[in-house]
């Protein structure tokens, strides 16, 4: 061996350990940096906990306590029994009792109820005569998952409940006919549900990130210092940073809706102008929230992480992936605080139900309130000095 003549230089042996030593040096450095980055550190814990809580507790694909209405055209004992029976199944919760067809339709259209039962005039008498009258059930099928489970349960539930009321013993057959009507989406096509939902989801994601990075980018590049030394007010900075992206968001919304209509055959039954107007409101709300994030964080990585923290519950709790009505009350309250929840109702209602401004007043106001709240936080949080 030539090893005797050319002894292995010491450097080479050192290098073999050098690989480990250098990797170790890098590893120590990364750990120190991670430890200093409190937000990232928090995110490591928060994200899995949040996901588990949401998936484990909040999400339930079998909806319970669906907000429902009854169109009562006769006030009979039998009618009351049927309603009671329905409510006892825990599928339905009757919030409204109306006597007028238009009121009934509007409740469904505005999304205040997802389910409606119509008891026609002369119902009880027809049952007693054995005429098998029709009990009309209307379900909002813009979310087919939520609607189908409830519709499926109807027949049996009612039958069981009626045992005690009409006859001694079980009736040989149903004394009346249940005629279920899956409104707005009779074929239970899921693309009808998903495409309008995607408009909101995609807009949330892109709009948030655009503005979430805007202030941190200026701080990181050092341009914030000279910007602050110039006579510009926090509101002016905010408006200047938000407005260009309203246009970007608008183009994006237009694209998604066009593809939805063109390729997936999703109808736009309502007013396009109203859809555009409320979409602009939603876009601005998201931009303001993104901007607020950028005033709260210290660097672009934190901004991305915080956007994720906002985006995740938006997807899970808004009714995009899972039926809103299936969630427990606390999750529904959380959901109400998210702009996507309100926009989903708006966009589904306008596209699939042909809803008008009248029907959407609550969700519009909620969006506007969230926008103003975000803007107020952003403007007060924006530091005018480097203190």
């Amino acid at each position, binding site marked *: 061996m030539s090893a005797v003549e050319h002894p292995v230089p010491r450097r080479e042996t050192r290098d073999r350990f050098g690989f480990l030593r250098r990797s170790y040096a890098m590893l120590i450095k990364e750990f120190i940096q991670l430890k200093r980055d409190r937000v990232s550190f928090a995110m490591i814990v928060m994200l899995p906990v949040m996901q588990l809580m949401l998936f484990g507790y909040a999400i339930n694909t079998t909806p319970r306590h669906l907000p429902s209405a009854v169109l009562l055209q006769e006030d009979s004992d039998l009618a009351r029994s049927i309603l009671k029976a329905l409510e006892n199944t825990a599928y339905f919760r009757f919030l409204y009792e109306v006597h007028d067809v238009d009121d009934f339709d509007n409740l469904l259209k505005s999304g205040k109820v997802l389910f409606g039962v119509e008891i026609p005039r002369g119902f009880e008498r027809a049952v007693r005569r054995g005429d098998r009258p029709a009990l009309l059930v209307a379900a909002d099928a813009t979310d087919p998952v939520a609607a189908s489970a409830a519709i499926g349960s109807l027949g049996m539930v009612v039958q069981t409940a009626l045992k005690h009321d009409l006859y001694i013993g079980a009736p040989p057959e149903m004394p009346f006919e249940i005629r279920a009507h899956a409104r707005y989406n009779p074929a239970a096509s899921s693309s009808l549900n998903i495409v309008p939902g995607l408009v909101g989801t995609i807009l949330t994601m892109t709009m948030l990130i655009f503005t979430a990075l805007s202030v941190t980018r200026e701080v990181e*590049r*050092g*341009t*914030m*210092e*000279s*910007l*602050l*030394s*110039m*006579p*510009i007010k926090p509101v002016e900075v905010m408006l200047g940073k938000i407005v260009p992206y309203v246009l970007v968001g608008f183009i994006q919304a237009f694209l998604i809706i066009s593809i939805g209509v063109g390729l997936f055959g999703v109808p736009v039954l309502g007013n396009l102008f109203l859809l555009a107007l409320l979409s602009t409101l939603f876009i601005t709300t998201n931009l303001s929230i993104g901007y607020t994030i950028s005033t709260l964080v210290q660097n672009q990585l934190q901004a991305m992480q915080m956007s994720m923290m906002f985006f995740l519950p938006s997807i899970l709790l808004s009714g995009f992936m899972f039926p809103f009505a299936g969630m427990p009350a606390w999750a529904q309250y959380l959901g109400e605080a998210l702009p996507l929840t309100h926009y989903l109702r708006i966009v589904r209602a306008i596209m699939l139900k042909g809803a008008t401004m009248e029907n959407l007043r609550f969700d519009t106001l909620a969006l506007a309130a969230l926008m103003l709240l975000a803007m107020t936080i952003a403007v007060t949080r924006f530091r*005018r*000095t*480097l*203190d």
Partner: protein
Amino acid sequence: MNGGNGIAIDVKGLTKSFGGREVVHDLSMQVKRGSIYGFLGPNGSGKTTTIRILCGLLTPDSGEGTCLGYDIRRDAEKIKRKVGYMTQRFSLYQDLSVRENLEFVARLYGLPDARGAARDMIKRLGLSGREEQLAGELSGGWKQRLALGACTLPNPQLLLLDEPTAGVDPKARRDFWNEIHALAAEGLTVLVSTHYMDEAERCHEIAYIAYGNLLAHGTVEEVIAKSALTTYTVTGETLNELAAALTGKPGIDMVAPFGTSLHVSGRDVAALEASIAPWRAKDGLHWQKSPPSLEDVFIELMGRSKDNFQ
């Protein structure tokens, strides 16, 4: 008003701490209108913090004063309109062109003809032909000129320049200083922080700040005269050994090599001369008593302030 005619900056007792560490301590200063005021001191001495307080980017913990006659606490927004602040780090938009950057500043300050103002400034800066170049692609010297142009665009009355020539070549530095003198001649007040002694000597007045304390101020001659420093310049061979031998001897505050010579300085003349006596007669060494340079004075001040404040 005390800031009315003669005085551009008049502050008293400024103090500012970050996280319990006092960065500026009881600082008072006055800057005459139309003068170039040099701000010197070691890194981390509080120069940038003081400048940021003056232009309203930081609020002092205590102390008061006026900048261009406006209260530095209450009237920060008014001060911002009349002050041009050039940050230490290049802070124009790297992804905007020269022209777009200037137009942005012009619009922010509400100049009536933003495009025209930007065009004129490009001409003045000698950047014609490069107006569409991205600011991030300019060389260091041009970036500094552009940054200065952006600060002066809204016709400020006071310029605050934080180490404007750091990392810029000597020719570009000289051009930059010629421009500053031209601006001062037009009546602008300039407060400029720097590490370069030759730049300090081009200022009308200088102030030396270390560890948050203003240690000396006045014209260059006044600062040197006030220092009471005695300096001997030694030339010859074996200077390295001499330096090693003298360092730390009584009366010798500072031994600093300058190329082929050695500066030996101290405040206590008698002790200094006693210490160097054994080497004065040595062959091959030529001793000469000389006035201290500004740098000698500053390094000595820095050493002394370290004893006093740290």
